[in-house]
């Protein structure tokens, strides 16, 4: 019998269900899902990382260690446009120096801009892969990602107003479980329909003009509930309608492109200022134009592109008179400070709404 790899990737919000689907259904390898991110993950990651690197480096390093300790023999590292593109090589070196033995497939090695090199990368995962199978599983995994972002978006928009919040959360959690267990296209479709159905059956007490907050920010921290200490859930708990355009599918799959998005923010910036900058500035401007009550900007400590768009966001805040809360997340151990800031922000936007309306 051929040796079958046990492959893992770092935890990344709830997107690991799509990674699993693609690897198991499209590339015929075993996928290992390590435990969810915890304080322990971040602590071991931070312990072995350089101090000034952005926080997701530390989180993902910790998550890789947990994957190796759970039995993975192969790690996949992805490529990216900012410091992310260098994560893989350094993380591999750190893990090797720690003595871990594993096969490392770093897509930065294959990130040349030429199609055949990316294909070489896929062949590294499974040399006997079938492209037809991979393409089908890939499309289905994208569909799963779309559903995931849609349901997650709906959840944070409505949770604060559900008459039975527990049942609402239960429906969402059941949906996530379905996606992690999905073995076929029909499983995905069924899980989605079940969740839609269950969530729509729970009545909402939403006022005509609820408090609306738009969340923008960095590619990892803004989406990953553990990394941002559940900022979105905390806002929803307070009875806020939480919106977030910045999702993996929106940025990677459905991105209108630098040129066609940048044209809408020409009064603020002439160029693309960073990999997620155009999308975030555009989101902030859109939320402001739609009359949102506030914007929350989420980033990890030392995220260069997100630090650099802050002067633009400040101008948008001034021009549209919309409050913006800037949050930076590092390896902190408590969410009390965050809670205080979010409560103050909530009180402020709630009072403003009473005065303005």
């Amino acid at each position: 019998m051929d040796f079958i790899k046990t492959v893992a990737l770092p935890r990344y919000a709830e997107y690991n269900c799509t990674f699993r689907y693609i690897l198991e259904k499209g590339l015929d390898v075993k996928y290992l899902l390590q435990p969810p991110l915890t304080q322990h993950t971040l602590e071991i990651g931070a312990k072995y990382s350089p101090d000034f690197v952005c926080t997701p480096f530390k989180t993902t390093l910790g998550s890789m260690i947990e994957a190796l300790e759970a039995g993975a023999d192969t790690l996949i590292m992805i490529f990216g446009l900012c410091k992310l593109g260098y994560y893989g090589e350094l993380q591999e070196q750190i893990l090797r120096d720690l003595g871990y033995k594993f096969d490392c497939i770093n897509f930065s090695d294959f990130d040349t801009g030429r199609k055949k090199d990316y294909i070489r990368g896929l062949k590294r995962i499974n040399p006997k892969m079938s492209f037809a199978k991979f393409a089908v599983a890939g499309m289905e995994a994208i569909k799963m990602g779309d559903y995931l972002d849609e349901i997650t978006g709906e959840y944070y928009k409505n949770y604060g107003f559900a008459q039975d919040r527990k049942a609402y959360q239960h429906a969402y959690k059941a949906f996530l479980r379905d996606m992690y267990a999905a073995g076929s296209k029909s499983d995905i479709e069924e899980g989605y329909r079940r969740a839609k159905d269950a969530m729509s059956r729970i009545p909402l007490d939403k006022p005509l003009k609820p408090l609306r907050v738009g969340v923008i920010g960095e590619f990892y921290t803004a989406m990953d509930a553990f990394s941002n200490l559940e900022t979105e859930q905390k806002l929803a708990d307070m009875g806020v309608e939480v919106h977030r355009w910045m999702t993996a599918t929106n940025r990677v799959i459905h991105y209108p492109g630098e040129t066609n998005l940048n044209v809408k923010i020409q009064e603020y910036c002439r160029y693309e200022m960073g990999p997620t900058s155009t999308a975030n500035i555009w989101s902030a401007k859109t939320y402001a134009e739609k009359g949102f009550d506030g914007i929350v900007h989420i980033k990890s400590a030392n995220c260069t592109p997100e630090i650099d768009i802050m002067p633009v966001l400040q101008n948008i805040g001034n021009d549209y008179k919309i409050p913006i809360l800037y949050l930076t997340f590092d390896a902190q151990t408590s969410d009390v400070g965050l809670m205080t800031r979010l409560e103050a922000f909530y009180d402020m936007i709630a009072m403003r709404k009473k005065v303005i309306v």
Partner: protein
Amino acid sequence: MEQITVGIPRGLLYFRYRTVWKTLFKELGFKVIVSEPTTQETADIGSALTVDEGCLAQKLFFGHVSSLVGRCDYIFIPRIRNYGKSRELCVRFMALYDMAVNMFRGSGQKFLTYSVDEWKSVSEKESVLELAKTLDLPTKRVKAAYKTAVKADEERQKELLQKQSERLKRNGLKILIAAHSYVIEDNFVGKPITEYLKKSGAVPIRADVVDRDSAFKKSLELSSTCKWTVNQEIMSGILSYEDRVDGIILLSTFPCGQDAMVNELILRRVGDMPMLNLVVDGQSGTAGLETRLESFLDIIRFKKGAL
């Protein structure tokens, strides 16, 4: 007609491209002014202007920009993204122009820029021509000016390499400094360090002064996926000079994430060489710095049996 004045902030990429920029604008008939060398005041003004999470080099840069506001017709801040795939610069250089425009938008100050993104087929030459179009300058003249500028820069490169090989022949402890040009050449950040080394009888050697054309290939021996041009040059410098120096100082500004990653890798992969990882912030005294440098030199001398 009165001569147009272009101001160039003495920060970040200025140190790498100053010959190109200054020659280009002078050849085009502009008056060029460069902001004064960095002082504590530059650092204070820059820190007050920028988000406190940005790096020291960026804070100094905006201190320089601020000192030029109102003193010239245009402030020149190019956006340089990459010189091709795997030849990238820090993402911060993509944002500088738009940051400046947003930060100083009430001041009435005008800015000049061009954007280099060779991966998307926009070369430096094309972007210069694009810039000239906005100023209504004849293409032919711009092409000639750009040619002169590139030539002048090549001369400067040669000169730097020449000086480097002279320094390598000198007697005394040779210390290789691995840093960006805007760190090592800055009056406020790198100068106190090189001055101190010279005063202590050591010869500072720059890791980033290398033959740029062969740097990328050479750096692959140390790191296969590092995509930042300047860090590639520094790594190739370490590989080229490590046999001829006594110690390496990895010098970066607080809190440079990119250098933190690359330096971590260097520390893990370059073996058997005394290395000092030095991170500089906007401190007002140099006593702490000198203590660390002194003990580093002592360790090297002790190792060599000279102490």
